[in-house]
């Protein structure tokens, strides 16, 4: 009996497909044995137990944007797209729970219909699944005003590598009774468990969003202004420098977003302009190319075949951005409040990335490979021995048999 037949007889409710039906490889050069699409947490659990018995790895995929480079081995793709739909939404409580395979767009639309939103805007957010966003702790530019994604995830249902179902957190804003295991799952990149359901905190939509911009020939020229914005007495919700932007004919832009009532954002803008010593252009829906500028800003670099991310203290950004420019790396997006730089491009080279990593580490920061393909990928900054040891122990309690795929890399 083939593996697929075995699975079909063991788990008749789980849909199984040939990988070719997925519409492209999950990542270059890697092909799963087959794609299984469970539609319940219980089936996810059964599938994991079955895979362990068959000595197969399991990799959860939803939108297929999974990125970590992995090693060889036989594995099953666990497609979460049937774990989908809004499970509970009580607008007055400002919480929403949805299956991990639910596209973020579905959640976002439901919230916006009720004058609410989830304040994060990672690249290509609307097309990504809730589980994917959470397991990557994907963040966007709203970090300054609303904090990291981890602050918005209130609870999750997860299945450990050996099939145990855990409810972590809950559906109220302050909800940890016992150790906060949810924190290690957010951003765990699927190393610990498979997410099947996620509860998010919602926020009322801000009464006004004001988008301010200054442009210049290069990203490097705008860093000082961005840092000045970040030390103003008012804190914008987002401070991002990006470039080169097609929408600006290859120039770079510093874009600052303010949220609040009309009178508040007027005053905030005035305070910022005085503090920075420059006046900003206002981007409105009517402005030329505003929508394109904003969407490029959100996605720049992230949708390319190769993408790396650097973190440093904001005060160290100038040096690292110059180092990137010196070795010809770009295009890039810099969240100057968070001290993060994302650089993407199909032609990123191993050596320039190595140089950038050195510059980042010398400045006390780090570099991570977000996406690279299979061949010759450069290495990012490793974690310390001590945290690696603790992480390994954590992995061992979540996934004792090492079934979850990326743990084997």
């Amino acid at each position, binding site marked *: 009996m083939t593996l697929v037949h075995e699975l079909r007889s063991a788990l008749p409710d789980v849909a199984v497909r040939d990988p070719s039906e997925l519409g492209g490889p999950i990542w270059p050069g890697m092909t799963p044995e087959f794609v299984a699409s469970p539609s319940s947490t219980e089936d996810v659990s059964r599938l994991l137990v079955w895979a362990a018995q068959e000595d197969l790895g399991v990799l959860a995929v939803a939108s297929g944007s999974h990125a970590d480079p992995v090693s060889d081995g036989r594995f099953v793709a666990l497609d979460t797209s049937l774990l989908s739909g809004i499970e509970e939404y009580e*607008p007055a409580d400002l919480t929403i729970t949805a299956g991990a395979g639910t596209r973020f767009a579905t959640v976002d639309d439901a919230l916006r219909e009720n004058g609410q939103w989830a304040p994060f805007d990672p690249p290509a957010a609307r097309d990504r699944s809730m589980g994917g966003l959470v397991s990557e702790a994907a963040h966007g530019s709203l970090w300054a005003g609303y904090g990291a994604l981890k602050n918005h995830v209130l609870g999750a249902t997860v299945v450990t590598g050996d099939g145990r179902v855990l409810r972590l957190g809950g559906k109220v804003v302050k909800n940890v009774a016992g150790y906060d295991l949810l924190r290690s799952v957010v951003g765990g990149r699927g190393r610990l468990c498979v997410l099947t359901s996620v509860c998010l905190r919602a926020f009322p939509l801000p009464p006004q969003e004001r988008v301010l911009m200054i442009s210049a020939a290069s990203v490097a020229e705008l860093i000082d202004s961005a840092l000045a914005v970040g030390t103003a007495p008012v804190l914008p919700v987002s401070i991002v420098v990006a470039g080169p932007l097609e929408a600006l004919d290859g120039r770079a832009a510093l874009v600052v977003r303010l949220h609040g009532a009309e009178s508040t954002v007027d005053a905030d803008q005035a305070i910022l302009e005085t503090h920075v010593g420059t006046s900003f252009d206002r981007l409105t829906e009517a402005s030329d190319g505003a929508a394109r500028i904003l969407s490029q800003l959100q996605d720049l670099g992230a949708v390319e075949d190769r993408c790396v991310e650097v973190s440093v203290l904001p*005060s160290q950004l100038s040096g690292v951005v110059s180092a990137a420019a010196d070795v010809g790396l770009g295009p890039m997006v810099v969240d100057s409040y968070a001290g*993060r730089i994302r650089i993407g491009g199909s032609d990123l080279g191993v050596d320039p990335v190595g140089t950038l990593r050195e510059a980042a580490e010398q400045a006390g920061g780090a570099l991570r490979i977000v996406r690279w393909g299979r061949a010759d990928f450069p290495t990012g900054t490793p974690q310390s021995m001590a945290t690696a040891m603790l992480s390994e*122990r954590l992995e061992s309690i979540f996934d004792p048999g090492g079934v979850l795929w990326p743990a084997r890399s």
Partner: protein
Amino acid sequence: MATPRELTISSVMTQTLTPTIADRLRAIVGQNHVITHPDRLVAYESDGLTAYRVVPRAVVLPETTEQVSRVLAVLHGEGIDVVPRGAGTGLSGGALPTPDGVIVGTARMNRILSIDEQDRLATAQPGVINARLTEATAPYGLYYAPDPSSQSACTLGGNVAENSGGPHCLKYGVTSRYVTGLTVVLADGEVVRFGGAGTEAVPSLDLVGLFIGSEGCFGIATEIEVRLLPAPEGVRTLLGIFDTMEAAGRAVTDIMASGLMPAAVEIVDHATIVAVEASVFAAGYPIDAGAALVIEFDGTEAGLDDDADRAEQCCVAADAREVRRATSEEERLGLWKGRKKAFGAMGRIAPDLLVQDATVPRTRLPEVLARITEIGQEYDLKIANVFHAGDGNLHPNILFDRQNADELDRVEKASREIMSLCVSVGGTITGEHGVGVDKRGYMPLVHNEVELEMLRRARWVFDPNGNLNPGKVLP
């Protein structure tokens, strides 16, 4: 669950520390910083939850990470349990000593190590008092957002261990949002560094996030790096007086649904108002009011009056009897007084006070409060409610006398019923005070055996021998 009586001082024999071990510890931290004399140890017999009391074997007060590391290595080698302690304001018995354990206190680790104005970060030792960090960063126009009501006494280390919140966490979020890095000494003395601003790209699991809220069971935090915020330009404070709690609850729901983002929304109930007004903390709240609602907005001056007007309209629409608005800092403190001094006032009308803590979905507040009143009546107990209404975090405060065994028994039964009630409506057994020793018995209300076992294993990850703060958190 261990009942308070099982753990009171009279029923537990404390072992003394052998002179050799005491001497080794003194060699590390200095002669005067190892306390073994019974008269002095009594000061450490409980935290803010006074129903539980155990005298520790000894108290060690290190000053640096290195000293903590060496102290823990000695105690680990001797197989002696360690209970970390900050200021002892915890309300779940987290810093309660074990009879054969040693307290490692952070009182001398009270230095702010750096303030980085440009990157808006500060690094402090764990014994720094929460409010002192804001005082120290004020000259830079910055402040530290998490503001537990105990902030003039509690320490940053305790805040990290409990993931503490506070009135203004409605808008700004709790401790975990602000801690960017930690230096931690593990049970065997190993010093590890978790996170750190600027190192987010290191592909590690979120060990900072996991450590926060670990209630002293995973390690001792010895350096804490936190993010600071710019101090808001202005503030507006309102006090709504309502005939009924239900009306105050409607006002909260309307305010939150209107798109306003208040910094704080706090409620005190009738019983609390009566207690406060009868005390030296009298704040001028009408004693026949059903509830008082404190609402605060902060941020850029320009928009604040509009926000306050809209919140006032919500109160009026919910039949507020009266809405007061502070026009000076003095008046603002006056409006807050009834909320801030509530615990103090209650402490004066009963020998003991159990400050309970639970969270429910905000929309379930009215029914939960009504049922808590009934539970109080059924057990013949006085229960006064003070709570962070904006995020559904309740503090039902039970007044009692621990010398009265029958009353103590009723307190335990009423507490359990309140916890079951909160869980049954989709809430949980603690919002910000932690599980400690007090709520271990309620853990099965929120976690099944598989989840509890997972929590035990999580503890093993950090402390395989289970020497750090044993008997806490897990049933």
